[in-house]
């Protein structure tokens, strides 16, 4: 099976974020990492390849720094990478991102496209589903298991509140992958070494521009959310905090 994995570079989970001057985005000088569900999507693609053979290709869009997620993907075992490299991609809405990906892979023949179920920065949870619509392929979201069968694949969808559902679907298809579908591997030293020699195709903004349109939604402003609840901060040495907490548990929460 030939599998494309869409990956995104996002700010690290505990990175302190600062607003930029326009107030519409964050300052770029933070530490980045692979969007967590995308890491699971990559792992699942590698496992499928190990079982059925084929090829795993990783793709991302963003400035030069975003190449790091592709390097990590290659080091873990992906065969090659595609980098849509331009600062402008950072400000794309989900539709334009999907359009750019669709344009970049128009000459390829994938059986499956994986994305993480959502990104930790925008959190749209839309790019994968939109990509399926643009490609004219079926899709399924929040996937926890993938088995090949005669007609295509059987996937396990996670529903809310502990429910699940198996879905049979033909290939090619787009799947959005849930965190926890598998156990992540670490890149080996050999893998990291080999990654340096694996092909990485760069795609410019100009190449995909004819397929793009205006962003259909616009972030007018970004800000620190207003607190809706009155929070009391407890400070001091650990022992004192423990005493204060017990006082709150007894007299305010009334659970002791």
């Amino acid at each position, binding site marked *: 099976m030939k599998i494309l994995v869409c990956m995104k570079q996002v700010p690290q989970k505990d990175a302190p974020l600062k607003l930029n001057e326009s107030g519409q985005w964050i300052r770029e000088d933070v530490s980045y990492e692979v969007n967590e569900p995308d890491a699971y999507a990559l792992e699942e693609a590698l496992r499928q390849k190990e079982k059925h053979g084929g090829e795993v290709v990783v793709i991302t869009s963003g400035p030069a720094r975003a190449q790091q997620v592709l390097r990590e993907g290659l080091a873990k075992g992906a065969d090659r990478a595609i980098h849509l490299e331009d600062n402008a991609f950072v400000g794309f809405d989900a539709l334009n991102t999907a359009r750019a990906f669709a344009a970049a892979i128009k000459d390829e023949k994938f059986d499956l496209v994986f994305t993480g179920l959502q990104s930790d920065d925008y959190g749209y949870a839309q790019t994968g589903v939109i990509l399926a619509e643009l490609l004219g392929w079926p899709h399924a979201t*929040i996937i926890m298991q993938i088995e090949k069968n005669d007609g295509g694949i059987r996937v396990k969808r996670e529903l809310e509140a*502990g429910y699940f559902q198996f*879905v049979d679907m033909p290939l090619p298809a787009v799947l959005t992958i849930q*965190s926890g579908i598998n156990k992540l591997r670490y890149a080996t030293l050999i893998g990291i070494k080999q990654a340096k020699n694996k092909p990485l195709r760069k795609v410019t903004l100009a190449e995909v521009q004819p397929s793009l349109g205006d962003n259909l939604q*616009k972030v*007018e402003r970004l800000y620190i959310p207003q607190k809706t609840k009155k929070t009391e901060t407890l400070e001091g040495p650990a022992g004192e905090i423990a005493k204060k907490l*017990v006082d709150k548990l007894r007299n305010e929460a009334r659970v002791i």
Partner: protein
Amino acid sequence: MPDTILVVVEQREGKLNRVSWETIAAGQALAKETGWTPEAAVVGSGVANFANEVAAKRVAKVYAVESPKLEPYTPDAFAAGLKQFIESKQPKIVLMPHTYQVRDFVPKLATALGRTAISDCIGYKKEGAKLLFTRQMFQGKLAADVSFNCDAPWFVTFQNGAFRGDQAEAGTNAAPVETVNVQIADGVVRNKPQEVFKEAKQAVDLTQAEIIVSVGRGIKEQKNIELAKQLAEALGGEIAASRPICDSGWLPMDRQIGSSGQTVAPKLYLALGISGAIQHIVGMKGSRTIIAVNKDSEAPIFEIADYAVVGNLFEIVPPLIEEVKKAKAGG
């Protein structure tokens, strides 16, 4: 024709999803602000009874959008059926709850119509003639006001708990119900869904717990779970966790709180090393008292905490266990 707000409510497994009332309340509030007419739609096969239930609320009309192909749910059928319906009715704005089902089809539907959906919103603002929808970004650390940069119909999904379902107003008379049969051609539906099931029976019902001690990534290692368990035991509560902990297998899946796990509202929710991603918050924000311990002072969990302790949980928890034991012993 006046501008309309179309609320698409959710039914599944023969039940109206309760979050639908929140979206109705959102539609009614937006109607007051804009002067647009609120309408509702139920999508499926044989959904007249749901339409009648929704018609008791103050909406101008309820549509039962029907096709045998809409049962069981598939994204192909829902996108095709709703596309047809929305093209014929041309609502100004379409509101839906941000459920797993809606997430599965709404981006496809909006794209098929050449439009966009602003997803997982927690509210809206009207500034002059402009409507802005507020959504959380960066796992809730920041919020954004987002506007549409395209013609109607606009699609918006609202996060669970963004509006209060009990504030959906009843109408003076039942709203008229109209059945709209949509045509979905053979071959449109490509997925074959099987029965919905629950993985092994839930061993623990956390919804009944009065005290929950919950752990997140900040617990660092599996062996440290023991510390949290000791605190839960001292308090007479249950141990629970955020998703990454259960994904790692450090606690079983039935201990998971959040959108993919259980939704709880105990008397006390004590969050240890939980940053408070949106998916976790929606599962516990109804708790009566929330205590959060986290080393990151910007962790979103502090936004909803009653008591915040910014610090190292490994320093705070041991003395806390001792103090709780002392207090319980009548000290």
